[in-house]
């Protein structure tokens, strides 16, 4: 498949939402993460390591920001809204807990990483996913420089050489590659699980059923804070959540009927059109 083919045929799934155009998606995988439920326990992150063959980089490389945590839990101490409203004071000791934010590839429909890739190794799929094709990647790292969420991880070294000394390598998931030096990687929404579910549905001549598979992070989450599904399926849990919380795809600013509804997308003002909706954290004040 030529680069020309990719640019002509597959950029059609990329939605700069100011444009109209051809958007006949097969699926639109999306997520909702409820920060009211997220406890910051890190189960999702380690589940991701287990599922996606994420390399261990060790202390020194970690200090150089080379950690490969596709799903990472960011932790903030400030609460800008509540502080602005004078509802909490962050003084000498903390009055409330921390703020946790599970951060993974936002699978933007107008992804900033895609158009800068010189070899079309990252592109938009008919599933609405932001794909990363490892064997096509030449490691220019333009995409990660362009990602406002800093969710792309580069293999500066052949991490696998140190990461899975025998017999640890026997745990590696054969459903996806082990990445080598010079390749960019990031969260895929567990595309290997999507692929299996789609294959099974196809073999049985049916559609993928909502909930028949879960992403690894979602499956592990003890508080069910993560909901994943197909947003083209009007009956899916994720679609209903987005609707309830009045967040729509294809907007850089939501016009909510009820501004108290908790849904928001991180940095959506940048016009990235992410497929992950967060539900605001709740505080008793």
């Amino acid at each position, binding site marked *: *498949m030529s680069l020309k*083919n*990719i640019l002509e*045929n*597959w950029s059609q799934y990329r939605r700069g939402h100011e444009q109209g155009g051809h958007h006949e998606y097969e699926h639109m995988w999306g997520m909702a993460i409820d920060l009211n439920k997220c406890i910051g326990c890190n189960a999702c992150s380690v589940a991701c390591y287990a599922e996606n063959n994420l390399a261990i980089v060790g202390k020194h490389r970690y200090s150089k920001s080379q950690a490969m945590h596709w799903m990472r839990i960011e932790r903030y101490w400030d609460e800008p809204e509540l502080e602005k409203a004078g509802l909490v004071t962050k003084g000498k000791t903390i009055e409330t807990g921390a703020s946790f934010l599970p951060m993974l590839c936002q699978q933007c429909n107008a992804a900033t990483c895609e158009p800068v890739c010189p070899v079309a190794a990252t*592109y938009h*799929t*008919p*599933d609405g*996913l932001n*794909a990363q*094709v*490892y*064997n*096509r990647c030449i490691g220019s790292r333009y995409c990660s420089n362009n990602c406002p969420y800093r969710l792309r991880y580069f293999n500066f070294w052949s991490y696998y050489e140190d990461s899975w000394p025998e017999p640890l390598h026997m745990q590696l998931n*054969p*459903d*996806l*590659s*082990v990445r080598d030096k010079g390749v960019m990687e990031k969260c895929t929404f567990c*595309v*290997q699980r999507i*692929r299996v579910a789609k*294959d099974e549905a*196809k*073999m049985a001549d049916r559609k993928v059923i909502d909930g028949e598979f879960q992403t690894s992070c979602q499956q592990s989450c003890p508080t069910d804070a993560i909901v994943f599904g197909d947003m083209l399926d009007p009956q899916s849990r994720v679609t209903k959540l987005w609707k309830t919380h009045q967040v729509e795809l294809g907007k850089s600013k939501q016009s909510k009927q009820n501004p108290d509804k908790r849904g928001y997308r991180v940095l959506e003002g940048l016009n990235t059109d992410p497929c992950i909706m967060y539900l605001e954290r709740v505080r008793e004040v």
Partner: protein
Amino acid sequence: MARVLWAPFLAALVAVFVLLSSPVTYAEVPNAVPPKGEHNGKDVPQPIEFPHDIHAKINEINCMYCHTYARRSKVAGIPPTSKCMGCHSVIATDKPRIQKLTEYWEKRESPPWKKVHDVPDYVHFTHEKHLKRFVFDNEGMEVERVSEVCAFCHGEVKNMTVANKVKPLNMGFCVRCHEANDGPSDCWKCHK
């Protein structure tokens, strides 16, 4: 006389025309354009020189009788040793190859087969969907003739003893076939 002389010529001409214009006549699998490409595979010595020809050609055993996983999984699978022994605990037990097999079986070990057809780790190829497309959902195609579909990528294995790689199984080979048969061309369909 002249007519008599012309007839075979015309027949030959028609045959050539048909051959060129309609692939159906030489590709026996209906609704399919076989992939093009050749590969000159080297011989791979196996622990037991398994004769595909005796099984698939002479005894006309269906490929999927032994490679039973092909229609249920992404891999076709090497048949479990128990499957071999299912027949060979009684058939041809005097042959050296079968005696070797029996040795493995009695040691509770599988023969260490060498992989002949392989694709890189970043490629997701699934047998079951290809069989669905070209055999089970393919109108006019009989399951008995499945070896002709297998041959798309594996060559005429029924004419070989141990399998030899005769198709390149590289991306161009796959993509040309996908283009000709209207297969998906999304990168993430096949790359993982």
